[in-house]
């Protein structure tokens, strides 16, 4: 059931083209049935989870590699699963209206459903490797969604940037996860969390932690990787609302929260989380305040929220974790709603620029009302859930065990800016004088308002009675992040205390900032443009340019089109490394003990040597081909003499056919001439002699060594009894190792078809007049 629930998105994605023909423009509503029913399914798990149980559903995937599709449901993953499926329902409805009549609507839904399934897999996976696979799947689907308008060059560039940053971080994360698996000896989250191993004291702890942090920071757009998220706003708005605010960017935070009980408690972990989280929080809030595009404003405020979440995990006290879960829920509710509303504004007015909107409350009263509600939550004002979360955050920072004052200052500064940002989003477009917009504005359609309305109302309800969601599920989630059972007593009103006073202060200063915004913003914008030359995004571009330059340089050096150089490098590297290993591990040993040979064996060896040298030295092509043939016959003689009759016969026949083939083909080519200079010849000769010496040493060393017991004895003993054959070589070929032979004759077939087509096309060229 759980497997089906996670994978149903992929299955549904296959059905989209057919459904689209069937449902026409109502496809959004039809597809939303899937996440809706998933929401119901996940909700049905709530009672047992809130009792503190952890569900583990086992599915095999690649048993040989220890990779499973086990799913683990605890409070944390269930909160995420509910957010993903719940918000997903509204997003799918919303997108049907937002992208109505778009020619690629079908493709959009295919990727969107695949993303939803990957995201569910990510938060529910118990296996580290499966987790990583789903993680990368979300990066890839995010890439395809950012670049959804693939005819727009800017969108393609932004999509690629997002992919490079998140997938690059993903690679580092994989290293971290494997190290973690190495430290704990298990690739299962449940087992890692349950083990009482002191991970912090392991030698690999620092490396594993840094790798995991880089992976999580890139995905969750922490400073200095935050620049990709605003650029991801090139995606259609439903994508921004879903992937880049409510779900995917929280994957990094999810990972941090998931591993907090195991990896946390160490100065490295909490220090870097607090440091980067606080920096991200302030940067995001500042950049949100200084932007004018409504989606950019929201994107930067998402960056700010992600920073807050990271910081709260870093603080790590019970109170901080409570604030973390509440802030996570509050943010998903209001930010998803605000993005959808921003999309509605864009859709109805034709502009994304806040400065060009004004007085829209008359033409879009419903949109205005819902936006105000959601923005109240963003600003952290009562009686919305955002207020509860913000008060908790301030209180937990007050009582933080380390850096309390510094974090508090940063948090209050961000809170001021966010108040101003909330005002920007809610007041600027809807109040004041009416500005003329590119499109005549009118109320957004029902499908685009239902989602924001429900989410905002939930934020309001949760705000008034915060103990209800806490009792149902949040306590369980807090417990799973904190690593020990937690009972909370959330309330909207705590009386007049320090956090409340700080809130009031930030509200007042924030309002002042909002009032001055029109004067401040252009200056800030100029400052940002000047500063961006040194920012991390400039670093990203310089890095990408550097990669191309290095690629260019090494291609010129190594792949310059001259076959001789390729071979030279190949030979030198291969034989250099082999020779080095041989000398260091085995030593230089030459043996001249030829006493075990019969005189006619020396004859065969002499034949080989002379014919090979003649083949190289002669200036006649026919002579060269003939003496190579003689070498081949010499090899056949060796095979026959040393107990390999099958080989001898084969070698003889093949050698004959080779000579025939060469005669057929090569004599259309010009005769031998010396093309290279003497210097090049001596260089090549030196390289070749070096390779030959290494091979000789290798053979001499290899003859006395046997690393493994040969499997030949099995073949020799069982050839007659099991395979009813007396010629063991043939039995190996057609019975014991039949699959190899099957592969080989297919290679033969490929070569034949290749030769045939090359000659055939040539013939056709000639017939052409």
């Amino acid at each position, binding site marked *: 059931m759980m497997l089906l629930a996670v994978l149903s998105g992929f299955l549904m994605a296959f059905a989209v083209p057919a459904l689209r023909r069937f449902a026409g423009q109502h496809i959004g509503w039809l597809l939303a049935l899937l996440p809706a029913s998933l929401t119901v399914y996940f909700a049905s798990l709530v009672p047992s989870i809130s009792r503190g149980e952890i569900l583990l559903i086992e599915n095999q995937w690649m048993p040989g590699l220890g990779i499973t599709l086990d799913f683990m449901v605890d409070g944390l993953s269930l909160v995420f699963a509910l957010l993903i499926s719940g918000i997903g329902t509204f997003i799918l409805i919303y997108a049907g209206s937002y992208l109505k009549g778009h020619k690629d609507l079908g493709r959009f839904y295919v990727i969107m459903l695949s993303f939803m399934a990957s995201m569910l897999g990510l938060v529910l996976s118990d296996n580290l490797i499966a987790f990583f696979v789903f993680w990368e799947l979300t990066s890839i689907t995010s890439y395809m969604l950012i670049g959804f308008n693939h005819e727009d060059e800017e969108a393609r560039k932004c999509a690629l940037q997002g992919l490079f940053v998140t997938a690059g971080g993903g690679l580092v994360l994989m290293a971290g996860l494997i190290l973690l698996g190495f430290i704990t000896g298990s690739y299962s989250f449940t087992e890692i969390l349950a083990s009482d191993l002191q991970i912090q004291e392991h030698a690999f702890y620092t490396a594993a932690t840094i790798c995991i942090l880089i992976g999580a920071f890139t995905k969750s757009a922490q400073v200095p990787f935050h620049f990709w998220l605003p650029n991801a706003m090139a995606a259609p708005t439903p994508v921004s609302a879903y992937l880049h605010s409510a779900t995917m960017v929280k994957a990094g935070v999810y990972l941090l929260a998931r591993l907090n009980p195991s990896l946390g408690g160490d100065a490295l972990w909490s220090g870097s989380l607090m440091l980067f989280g606080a920096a991200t929080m302030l940067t995001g809030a500042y950049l949100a305040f200084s932007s004018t595009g409504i989606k950019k404003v929201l994107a930067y405020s998402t960056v700010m929220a992600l920073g807050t979440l990271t910081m709260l995990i870093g603080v790590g006290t019970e109170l901080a974790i409570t604030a973390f879960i509440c802030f996570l829920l509050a943010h998903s509710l209001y930010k998803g709603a605000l993005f959808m509303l921003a999309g509605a504004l864009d859709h109805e007015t034709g502009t994304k620029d806040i400065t060009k909107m004004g007085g829209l409350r008359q033409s879009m009263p419903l949109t205005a009302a819902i936006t105000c509600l959601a923005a109240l939550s963003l600003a952290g004002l009562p009686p919305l859930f955002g207020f509860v979360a913000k008060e908790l955050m301030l209180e937990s920072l007050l009582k933080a065990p380390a850096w309390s004052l510094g974090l508090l200052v940063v948090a209050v500064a961000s809170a001021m800016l966010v108040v101003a940002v909330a005002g920007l989003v809610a007041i600027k477009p809807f109040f004041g004088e009416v500005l003329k917009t590119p499109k005549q504005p009118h109320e957004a359609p029902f499908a685009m308002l239902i989602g924001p309305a429900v989410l905002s109302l939930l934020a309001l309800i949760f705000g008034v009675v915060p103990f209800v969601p806490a009792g149902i599920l949040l306590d369980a989630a807090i417990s799973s992040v904190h690593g020990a059972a937690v009972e909370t007593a959330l309330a909207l009103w705590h009386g007049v205390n320090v956090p409340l006073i700080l809130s009031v202060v930030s509200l007042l200063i924030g309002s002042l900032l909002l009032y001055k915004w029109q004067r401040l913003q252009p200056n800030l914008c100029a400052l940002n443009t000047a500063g961006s030359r040194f920012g991390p995004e400039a670093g990203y571009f310089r890095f990408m340019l550097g990669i191309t330059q290095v690629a260019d340089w090494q291609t010129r050096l190594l792949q310059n089109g001259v076959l001789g150089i390729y071979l030279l490098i190949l030979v030198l590297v291969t034989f250099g490394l082999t020779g080095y290993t041989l000398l260091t591990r085995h030593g230089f040993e030459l043996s001249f003990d030829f006493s075990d040979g019969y005189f006619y064996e020396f004859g065969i060896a002499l034949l080989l040597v002379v014919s090979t040298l003649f083949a190289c030295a002669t200036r006649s092509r026919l002579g060269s081909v003939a003496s190579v043939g003689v070498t081949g016959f010499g090899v056949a003689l060796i095979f026959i003499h040393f*107990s390999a009759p099958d080989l001898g016969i084969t070698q003889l026949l093949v050698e004959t056919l080779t000579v025939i083939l060469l005669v057929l083909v090569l004599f*259309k*080519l010009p005769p031998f001439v010396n093309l290279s200079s003497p210097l090049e010849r001596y260089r090549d000769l030196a390289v070749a002699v070096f390779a030959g010496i290494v091979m000789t040493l290798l053979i001499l060393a290899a*003859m006395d060594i046997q690393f493994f017991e*040969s499997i030949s004895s099995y073949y020799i003993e069982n050839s007659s009894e099991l395979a009813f054959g007396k*010629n063991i*070589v043939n039995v190996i070929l057609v019975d014991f*190792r039949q699959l190899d032979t099957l592969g080989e004759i297919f290679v*033969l077939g490929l070569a034949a078809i290749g030769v045939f087509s090359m000659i055939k096309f040539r013939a056709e060229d000639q017939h052409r007049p």
Partner: protein
Amino acid sequence: MATLMAYVIGLLFTASIYMMLRRSIVKLVIGLIILSNAANLLIFVVAGLTRGAPPLIAEGAQQITGTVADPLPQALILTAIVIAFSVLAFAVVLIRRAYEVVGTDDLDQMKDTDT
């Protein structure tokens, strides 16, 4: 005998690599042929040389008594010989085709038409 063969095989490798580094494509082909012979001999010699005891079970018997040559490398080499031949055929035809298109058998000049 194996010691002697080690030197012979070293010579074969030297010859083949030298020939493959030449700029003339015909010499490249010759080098390829010698290389496959050298590689096959290498496997054969390293696995151990046994005189006069082919891996065949006598008529009527169920088991081999006494030492016998190792059948596994022989099976490997047998397939290698045939594969090497078909690869060689492919390479030879490809080279001739390239010669016809480019009009030179100088490998250094072939790179310029790499479009």
